[in-house]
């Protein structure tokens, strides 16, 4: 309360006068400084990708481009070199697309079935299976790399060669490693549904598949969106599986990006590198900015990544 009102004998009434306290200023200052720290790399990425190396020289990474150009984006997309091939990131983009479009639906459908069965159709050992699966979410991939290489190489394809280093191979690997988190996600979702719903469908005479397709699937749209977001960003951002299992013909965008950057000769050409980086990050970033709160919802369940 201000001194003036007290002097005039006016009683405190209505809302308490708000003062801007140092604590509040401190909170905002902290948040803004933090926000700047988080935004700087994005700004540097964008600025650098639109100006030649001459303009970056001499400590000008934050300077606006004098003549903004998308030349480096074009170069990164179509003509940057990895080793002797100079096809840019484009092949990697299409490889990542293929891998993502195949692995996302497969892993989600499998995991949805798991979650559904684990919530409503428990059988002897189902909880043990689930426990093992969740345990798998914590195991470092490196522990399983060789066994999987070995297993995939043992599967001979009719048209020659093995599963190792093929598109189906990498899709299988992504489906395996997506399963623990997604199963957990779907199990928790189905467990939160009223059990009466399931009982009512049972009383109506529906069986495992019927209940799944007619009752559960239509109700799972929101959680499926979360799962899709989780899997699209997870698979798109994957590096190590693509590196090890995809084979030279199917290298995903992240691996190609790294190869392009490693290939630069002489001075590092940051302009092209940053353009390539933005192009590679574009898909998950768009997914992130469009999905907003959905993404945050998926985080608690899916924050495990490489």
């Amino acid at each position, binding site marked *: *309360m201000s001194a003036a009102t007290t002097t005039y004998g006016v*009683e*405190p*009434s*209505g*809302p*308490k*006068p708000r003062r801007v306290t140092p604590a509040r200023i401190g909170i905002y200052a902290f948040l803004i400084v933090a926000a700047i720290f988080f935004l700087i790399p994005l700004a540097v990425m964008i600025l650098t990708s639109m100006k030649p190396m001459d303009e970056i020289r001499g400590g000008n990474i934050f300077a606006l481009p004098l003549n903004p150009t998308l030349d480096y984006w074009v170069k990164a997309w179509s003509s940057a070199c990895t080793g002797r091939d100079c096809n840019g990131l484009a092949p990697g983009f299409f490889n990542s697309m293929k891998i993502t479009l195949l692995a996302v639906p497969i892993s989600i459908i499998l995991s949805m079935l798991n979650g559904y069965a684990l919530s409503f159709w428990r059988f002897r050992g189902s909880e043990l299976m689930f426990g093992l699966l969740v345990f798998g979410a914590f195991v470092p991939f490196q522990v399983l790399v060789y066994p999987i290489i070995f297993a995939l190489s043992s599967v001979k394809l009719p048209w020659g060669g093995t599963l190792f280093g093929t598109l189906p191979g990498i899709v299988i690997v992504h489906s395996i490693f997506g399963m623990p988190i997604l199963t957990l996600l779907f199990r928790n979702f189905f467990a939160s549904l009223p059990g009466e719903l399931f009982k009512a469908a049972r009383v109506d005479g529906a069986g495992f598949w019927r209940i799944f397709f007619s009752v559960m699937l239509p109700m799972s749209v929101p959680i499926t969106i979360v799962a899709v977001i989780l899997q699209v960003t997870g698979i798109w951002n994957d590096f190590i599986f693509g590196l090890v299992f995809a084979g030279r013909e199917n290298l995903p965008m992240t691996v190609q990006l790294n190869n392009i950057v490693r290939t630069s000769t002489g001075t590092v050409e940051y302009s092209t590198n940053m353009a390539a980086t933005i192009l590679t990050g574009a898909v998950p970033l768009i997914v992130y900015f469009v999905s907003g709160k959905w993404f945050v919802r998926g985080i608690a369940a899916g924050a495990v990544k490489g």
Partner: protein
Amino acid sequence: MATSVQIKDLSLNYGAVKVLDRLNLDIADGEFIVLLGPSGCGKSTLLNCIAGLLDVSEGQIHISGKNVTWEEPKDRGIGMVFQSYALYPQMTVERNLSFGLRVAGMPKPEIESRVKRASEILQIEPLLKRKPVELSGGQRQRVAIGRALVRDVDVFLFDEPLSNLDAKLRNDLRVEIKRLHQRLKNTMIYVTHDQIEAMTLADRIAIMKNGVIQQLDNPHTIYNKPTNLFVADFIGSPSMNFLKGDLADGTFTTNGVSVPMGSYGFVGSPNGKAVLGIRPEHVQVGEDARKMPFQFESEIEIVEPMGAETVAWTTLAGQSLTLRADAEVDLQPGQKILVGFDPARGSVFNAESGNRI
């Protein structure tokens, strides 16, 4: 008696929504006030305003003669008990009771004596070394009351303290709260949506709706002379029977049936469209009905034996009528029986304003 809590023209708005609307309430020293109403009526909001947990939009709050509108909760001389108990889970009962006093820097011996007194009053001495997870719901709520007790304050605020307990425990603790009030003689403000709690505990009940107090009176008056249709309908279970009709020259007519109002004490201008309210227990059947000023023949439709009593459904002039009869009275669905009541014990409301006339 001296005023303990005084609320003057209190309003609270969230944007255009008025949660409390120019509300006035004077609470006497040592009085037990119950704020009662359906959810969303503003009763908890009012309590939070008194506690200083919500900033008011307009008006003033005085506690023990001091204007506390802008004071911090801890400086208002209040203690509060919450529905979820709100005990600090990582602390023992003893520490839960003493934590606020320690933070305030009170000398150790004083803290000890206060904790001792509170735990004696509430009989929680054996629990002092336990943590909240190791207590039952009733024990937790007792500790929560103890936390308000050690503050040694003038006014106790209860925010639906018994709602999380099962029915039997709720009854036991209700009696204990009443005993506590008789012993301490503090002012208590108690929020609930349970009318039994309100009727049994309160010196006065404030019935709220849409941020406005509808009626503030002792339980007997609230029950027998409800001030409007809302109060009449809200209090009482099974709820009051309402017959729609017209009132002219001391006679209430509904669907062609005339009910002479006899010695009913009208206030204001009584003629026009009206609603007659009759409590189910004022409706008599069989021999008892013969003594009633108004009688009619009717058919029993549904019978609900409740153990101590029987609730039955019949009709009067095409409108449903509930009645409460002794469990010994033999009632059967389809049975034709004489039904009667004393209109003077009923309540008549203006059909448009809903106010008692």
